[in-house]
């Protein structure tokens, strides 16, 4: 029995790096320090695995599956590469290259979660920080449209609410926690104050707060929040030693979308005239930040990148997977580490079933079920090393704790094989 320490969890954007994984033979027997979701990912990573590559449901060799994938992609006029956020950075880089050599589009799951956050950043910027600054300094923590107990289980303990920091030695007692949301959630129960905002009323409330911070006195209720509560929160924000807003999909995927973030960024920027204030998106998939980061350094753009003209172009809404599929544009797709058939609108998912779709995954999903080519791959962060970027943009090294189940190859290796074959097929043509 071996205990591997300092293991990074490949589940959510928290990238907790203090896991202790117990391994016996090639089996994981325990996952200390892991949250419930993380433990489940580690303990059952071997269950329901896809056993062999398939082409149109028939079991084939890896080489045959790769050949079928390469043929579909090399002959496509408008291929799309999608997913990326739940694998390591080397594989992500291969996805970008695959889109480039096929003249296709590469998009990642940010386009259906924090894409609007990035759009706002491109308009007005963002004042952000690494999570340790929150632990060490923040005495005012605001969760807005986010619910860590459900999605980022150890966030409170490691970063934002209870940890004792350099200038917050009291831990929880040294922080005032506010939760803003459309309904009460487990986060509200932890918070010192819950502010219930009307559905679709975030933009107005943020704008009112910003006005109050600028010195305006709010005299009427906004989005269901009493005027005095808004004025008081603005005062509290200005008087904080250091404050942070952790926002989630409640802000990015509700009415207003990127405009909500735009005004939140403006509020936070305004507060910097008074004190230290920052905001950080609660990124979901453990390496969605890495998908954005790698795609940006290679192409200049974070997602929704089109190579049809040989150089990268960017246009969310046009080159985003949901939109392209809904329009019926792609004539081939390769899905890496994602399950769009389960998460996309029906129209978009249906188009995936109509075109040659290739999927690289560990387990059977709705997407693998509609795919023409399915290639089983190893799990990054459990069976393969690699890099992942935490929600605050800092990267850590993922561990390999066991050998790949059934000796399957990694995303990167399979993508390398496909790229090599696509290049050869393109040369021949």
């Amino acid at each position, binding site marked *: 029995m071996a205990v591997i320490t300092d293991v990074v969890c490949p589940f959510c954007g928290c990238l907790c790096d203090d896991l202790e994984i117990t391994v016996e033979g090639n089996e994981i027997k325990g996952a200390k320090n892991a949250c419930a979701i993380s433990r489940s990912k580690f303990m059952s990573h071997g269950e329901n695995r896809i056993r062999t590559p398939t082409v149109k449901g028939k079991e084939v060799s890896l080489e045959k599956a790769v050949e079928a994938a390469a043929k579909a992609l090399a002959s496509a006029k408008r291929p799309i590469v999608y997913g990326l956020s739940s694998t390591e950075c080397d594989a992500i880089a291969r996805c970008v290259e695959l889109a*480039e050599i096929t003249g296709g589009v590469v998009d990642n799951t940010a386009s259906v979660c924090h894409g609007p956050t990035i759009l706002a950043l491109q308009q007005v910027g963002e004042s952000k920080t690494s999570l*340790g600054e929150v632990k*060490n300094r923040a005495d005012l923590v605001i969760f807005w449209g986010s619910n860590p107990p459900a999605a980022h289980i150890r966030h409170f303990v490691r970063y934002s609410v209870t940890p004792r920091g350099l200038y917050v030695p009291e831990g929880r007692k040294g922080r005032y926690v506010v939760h803003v949301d459309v309904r009460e959630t487990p986060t509200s129960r932890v918070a010192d104050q819950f502010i219930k905002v009307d559905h679709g009323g975030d933009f107005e409330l943020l704008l009112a707060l910003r006005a109050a911070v600028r010195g305006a006195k709010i005299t009427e209720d906004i989005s269901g929040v009493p005027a005095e509560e808004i004025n008081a929160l603005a005062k509290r924000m200005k008087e904080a030693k250091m404050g942070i807003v952790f926002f989630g999909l409640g802000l990015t995927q509700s009415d207003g979308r990127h405009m909500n973030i735009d005004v939140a960024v403006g509020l936070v920027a305004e507060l910097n005239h008074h004190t230290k204030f920052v905001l950080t998106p609660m990124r979901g998939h453990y390496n969605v930040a890495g998908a954005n980061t790698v795609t940006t350094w290679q192409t200049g*753009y*974070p997602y929704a990148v089109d190579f049809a003209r040989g150089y990268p172009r960017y246009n969310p809404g046009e080159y985003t997977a949901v939109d392209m599929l809904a329009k019926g544009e792609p004539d081939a797709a390769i899905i890496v580490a994602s399950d769009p058939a389960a998460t996309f609108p029906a129209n978009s998912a249906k188009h995936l079933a109509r075109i040659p779709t290739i999927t690289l995954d560990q387990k059977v999903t709705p997407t693998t079920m509609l795919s023409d080519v399915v290639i089983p791959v190893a799990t990054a962060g459990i069976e393969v090393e690699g890099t992942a970027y935490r929600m605050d943009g800092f990267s850590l090294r993922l561990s390999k704790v066991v050998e790949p189940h059934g000796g399957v190859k990694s995303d990167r290796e399979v993508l390398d094989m496909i790229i090599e074959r696509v290049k050869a097929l393109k040369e021949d043509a």
Partner: protein
Amino acid sequence: MEDLKIKGGYVYDPLNGVDGDAMDVLISGGKVVEKVGRDAKVIDAKGKLVMAGGVDLHSHIAGSKINIGRLMRPEDHRKDVVPRTRVTRAGVGYSCPSTFVAGYRYAQMGYTAVMEAAMPPLGARHVHEELNDTPIIDKSAFTLFGNNHFTLKYVKEGDLEKLKAFISWLLRATRGYAVKIVNPGGVENWKWGKNVGGLDDLVYNYEVSPRQIVTMLAQANEELGLPHTIHLHCNNLGVPGNYETTIDTMEAVKGIRPADGRKATVHVVHCQFNSLDGDNWMNVKSGASKVAKYVNANEHVTLDLGQAIFTDTTTMTGDGPWQFRLWNITGNKWVNSDVEMEAGAGVVPYTFKKDNPANAIQWGIGLELALLIEDPWRVYMTTDHPNGGPFTFYPTVISWLMSRQARTDLMREMNKSVLRRTTLPNIYREYTFGEIATVTRAATAKALGLKDKGHLGIGADGDVSVYHLDPTAWRPSMYRDLEKSLARAAYTVKGGEIVVKDGVVTATPLGSTFWVDSKIPEKLEAEVMKEIEADFDKYYTVGFRNYPVEDAYLPTGVRMETKGRWAR
């Protein structure tokens, strides 16, 4: 790889006293050699300018800051797209080029080594990932120290030996090459929304001054015998009147005994931004002549220009409070990024305009520094890419240095402030080709302690640039031809391999990444590691063992071992 004979060019190799002699450069096994085989490939360089590959000692090409710049500026990319070719990857250019394009474009100008000037330790892994995607050129990255918790702690305790041990450890952990300092103390105070106003202000909680931080880091740096001096972004950057702080800072490290083999104890970066006189942006004027006068009289200082270019660019520094100030001046979009326990950064797009009086003065200051400082071995050509402007403007900057007419022609189009509030119109000096080779290659390589770079002597790296330019026929009135030739090298040779021909990239090897391994006495190392680990467990959000950059991130790493002077 076949041997190479670069035949008959006019060679400028100031480190070896070669000043435009027509001669051959021979390369075998990636190095400059005395003899090559008879079947060596011949590059006909007759009538052409030949120099060692360019060495840029201050640029922002990899890591979180430049990537934030890329991320926030799709509008920057749209005007400069780069399609894929059979040899090269697709990408984008202009002020925040994608990694591939940055490598290609440096090589196209004949540059073969570029230093990333600011690496936040926690972001070191990211920096190295990007460097590994930056083809052709050799690289290194400078680790940020000036606002690090452990730096401030050991400065406060006045424990030089522990500071030296910490520096050695952090350089190793981040695979860094030099000690970078950005607005010492100011960035820590920015974490409370404040700054420092000068050398003797205090850092909150630590109660130490920028003066103490800089002098102690410089002292430690020299005792460790690191290849490069401290690499310092002074306090008060961008604040009119800051030339005084700059000179005070230089003076503060004057008495320090330099490491063996050099006279310098400090390199002051992008000095243009730190040579402003006046009280505010209305009456700002050049303080360059005062800075130059100090530098001329004091051998312990080197500096680089941070030349301003009239274009739309993206400013990015580890100086959070300055970027906040710049956001307030411009109203442009602003990204701030703080890094726990150690650093921070900010990014703001900026356009230098000819008709803006302050910008015209800034343009003049950079050139004044270059032309008023007499010793070209101590003043280096940079734009602080992309802060003063993209590195792709280097050929233009060189044309300004070499041609008074180029300067005058441009000054005619500019705000008259450049005539009245700088001394540039009265400067007649024009750089020679030998001096250009010095400020872009020989001197930068020397300042970095890269002994095999920046020259073409036997044993030097086989990094050579050949330009379509006959230096014997060139006159300063031909400055546009000069710009054109320098922008597209006839040949760039990297490690003996032709990587650029007639301005087109022909091969994309992955260059080396240099890092410094400074040995710490065993007992001291154990003691300091214990302290560092204890604070790590309490205050960082990544584990102590997950913090150092793993070897996997340095597939082409080159370790440079140094042995310092230790008192215990």
